[in-house]
């Protein structure tokens, strides 16, 4: 079902946790649906210097959370914003069709965090 890459990220997720006093916070999903994610970022010169996640959810939700933080870390905000659900799935060597919604959550979480940063700092993309 899951690729080796998904299982690796599930087994050993990168960037789990919360940044203290983050520059941006993204929260998506809700426990009723079974999936919930909170991403915190620290931004320096329009670059995502640090990023952490906390996720309640299935294997794919955790793996995509982990992957999105890995992809986004060190990226310019402009590019990070463009990370799509397909990018995340591809980076994980694919996801089962019924699991594609989990990778949406991860992409949305990141975008929300960036939006939160922008709204606090008045910068527009």
């Amino acid at each position, binding site marked *: 079902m899951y690729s080796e890459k998904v299982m690796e990220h599930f*087994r050993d997720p990168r960037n789990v946790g919360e940044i203290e006093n983050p520059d941006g916070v993204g*929260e998506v999903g*809700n*426990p009723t649906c*079974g999936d919930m994610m909170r991403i915190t970022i620290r931004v320096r010169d329009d670059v995502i210097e640090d990023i952490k996640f906390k*996720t*309640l*959810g*299935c*294997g794919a939700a955790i793996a995509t959370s982990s992957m999105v933080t890995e992809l986004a870390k060190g990226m310019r905000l402009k590019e990070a914003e463009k990370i799509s659900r397909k990018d995340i799935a591809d980076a994980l060597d694919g996801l089962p069709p019924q699991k594609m919604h989990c990778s949406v959550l991860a992409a949305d979480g990141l975008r929300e965090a960036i939006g939160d940063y922008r709204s606090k700092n008045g910068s527009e993309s």
Partner: protein
Amino acid sequence: MEKFIYLDYAATTPVRPEVVEAMMPYFTEKFGNPSSLYTEGRNARGAIEEARDRVAASIGAESREIVFTSGGTEADNFAIKGIAYANEKKGNHIITTPIEHHAVLEPCHYLRKRGFEITYLPVDEHGMVDPADVERTITGKTVLVSVMHANNEVGTIEPLSEIGKITREKGVYLHTDAVQTFGHIPVDVNELGVDLLSISAHKLYGPKGIGALYIRRGTRMEPFMQGGSQENNRRAGTHNVAGIIGFAKAVEIAEKEMVSEAKRLAELRDYLIRGILERIEDVRLNGHPTKRLPNNVNVCLVGAEGEAILLSLDMEGISSSSGSACTSGTLDPSHVLLAMGIPAEIAHSSLRLTLGSRTTKEDIDYVLDVLPPIVKRLRAMSPLGTAWGRK
């Protein structure tokens, strides 16, 4: 060797070596078609009739009341659609429960689109049906009541005998899906008062792809599988001879071991439940505390997600099951847990461990060692922690 602790016996069971052995001759040597008239055909016919006698006797039925099917799903489809279509003139009302297996729910759902009315009986927080509700719900148009003998997810055993008394009195057919009980606790069609009863071999150490439907003599039924005149014109298709022989062998062994094995498993089950409740916070036991299958443990590990628990257990060599949305192939968590009034956010955290022939106390101890840190890790990874799980 890697650890392999199988705790999903409710999903399927390994075929017993004795069962495989009994089946073997029917593949290569005794391969005749039971419908054929020559010696090999007659021998095959004789063998399946003996198997039928065995299965029938084990549930207190007559041999001719047993129809072999391709499994529990076919037996359920056959029962529900067979009764509905054959008794359309009498009425179009079917009563069932919201906690049935999909093999009952889906045929009912289908019939609704074809003009039938389906009433779903309420269940309490343990998944228990109240016989009084059956009595109250039956109308002049009711043709069938279908209530499972025990639920496959939470293990609750339903009060079938009481329901059977009511349906008999009212002259309404009663079907029960006994796929989870047959071979594990006593099943007797007369004590239960049922007219139709579904069973499946792969839940009692028999092969997959073979099952049976008990049909009480005189029941007005329409065939489901149509074609040749096998099974007295009630189920067409060349007999799965090896499967039938294996099924009967599994039944024979189950009968011998049922009492002692049920006792052994119930002790292990209670030990496992106690251990989980002691070692993990915010746990909810699902299903009836005492009227439950001897091998079923089902808990909500609030604040962790079921599939993530399952995968984590798998990494430790433990096979389990969950009612989370992610494991059901839909967006909703288990329909059984929801029907019992468990909120979706808690239902997503359900874990089912079902014990069986190979399960030992050491296995349970291992689970009790491994499960708490898994839950702790997942809760720590959650943005909610465990806070919201607390009242």
